[in-house]
């Protein structure tokens, strides 16, 4: 029964929406006259609640107020949006800066490292054996030998020979008796570097006599110093004696004044 009434009521509602009256509906479904009347009376009562309306003042003035308030809020929100966009832009800039920071730190570190290493390397060029940076100087010479072209190797070996002579000269000038061992080693290196230099034809364009003079000068000074030390300290070893027989005099048989000068300074050459 309920289902049938439900169908009838919904059909009547459709008919009324199409423009038919309640009476038309009742005529169509005569068996349900009372039910239809009761339902539509209830619907009419509900429709009576349309009397609920805002007051006249509100009805007449609210639209303008609402629109003005809406526009005001839109303006504020667009200003806020602009401000937020500006903040976001700034923040993204900060973020970018933050992201770049490690790269910047690395770059600064790299530059500082390069400068620092260059400075250290430069400083090491003035060192002599026994000093902290001397191994760096020697390593750099080894590095040069690797990277320089073959055509410049003679220059390099000549430079190394001069370096060793200069280092020995500095050590001999110092009063430090502990430097003897370094001078002794340097003399060995000077000898070997001289031989290498000859192999690379260092002296084809340079004055070999001058180099020999310098080498012999170093050896003589070392020998003299050794003798003096031995006189003062009889317990001291005999290491300098090893070089007494290694004078470069034999290599300068046909050389000029340099060799002569060396002979005059000490007699070791004549001895040989």
């Amino acid at each position, binding site marked *: 029964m309920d289902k049938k009434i439900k169908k009838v009521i919904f059909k009547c509602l459709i008919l009324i929406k199409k423009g038919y009256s309640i009476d038309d509906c009742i005529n169509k479904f005569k068996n349900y006259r009372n039910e239809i009347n009761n339902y539509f009376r209830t*619907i009419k009562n509900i429709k009576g*609640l349309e009397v*609920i309306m805002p007051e006249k003042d509100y009805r007449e003035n609210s*639209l303008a107020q*609402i629109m003005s308030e809406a526009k005001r809020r839109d303006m504020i929100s667009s200003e806020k949006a602009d401000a937020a966009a500006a903040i976001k832009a700034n923040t993204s800039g900060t973020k970018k800066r933050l992201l770049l920071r490690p790269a910047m730190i690395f770059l600064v570190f790299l530059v500082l490292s390069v400068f620092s290493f260059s400075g250290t390397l430069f400083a090491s060029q003035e060192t002599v054996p026994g000093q902290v940076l001397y191994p760096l100087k020697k390593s750099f010479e080894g590095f040069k030998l690797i990277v320089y072209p073959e055509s410049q190797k003679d220059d390099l070996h000549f430079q190394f020979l001069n370096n060793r002579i200069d280092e020995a000269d500095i050590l001999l000038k110092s009063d430090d008796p502990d430097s003897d061992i370094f001078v002794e080693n340097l003399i060995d290196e000077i000898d070997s570097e001289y031989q290498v230099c000859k192999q690379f034809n260092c002296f084809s364009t340079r004055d070999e006599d001058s180099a020999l003079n310098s080498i012999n000068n170093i050896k003589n000074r070392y020998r003299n110093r050794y003798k003096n030390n031995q006189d003062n300290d009889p317990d001291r070893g005999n290491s300098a004696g090893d070089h007494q027989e290694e004078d470069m005099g034999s290599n300068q048989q046909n050389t000029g004044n340099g060799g002569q000068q060396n002979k005059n300074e000490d007699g070791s050459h004549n001895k040989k």
Partner: protein
Amino acid sequence: MKNIADYLKNYKKSKDTNWFEGIYNIMMPKIYRFYYLKTFNRELSEDLTSEVFIRVYSNIDKTDLNERSFMAWIYRIASNLLMDHFRKNKNGGRQVELEENSIMISDDDILKKNSSLLRKELGFENISLLNALSNLTGLQRDAVLLKFLEDMDYKTIASIFGKRVSTIRSIIFRALTKLKEETRSING
């Protein structure tokens, strides 16, 4: 006479405010009644109604300009504003039922308590209907009022409540039957 769909189309075509005036004239009394039958407070109903239309004006771009979606949207705004109001005012000392995904805010006693106010202020004499309405569930009451007071079609009501059309039809018929029986028994 233009309806909501026409004004929404008008909004798409031009950006003048005629669309808003049209929608406002149709929807304002409905939204006001929605509030008044839940609060029985004229000033509050007017304030909340104004707020609904301010939000409609400002956010119309963010909604689907299909009539049913628009109706569901505007009642959702109305419902959320009322919930916010009750939360802020701690329900005004009243028990208010807030249902998830629904526009219902039920207070069964409020219709009974304010029937005399309705008669006094609006000349509405059918107290038995108010009593009968107060005996319905929140969903039944809102659905039957949207259907027979606001002349809304079933599909729109279904989209407002997020329910199927057949469910809404059953709810409305059950509510109407209950109202019919209670008003008849009261009227004798």
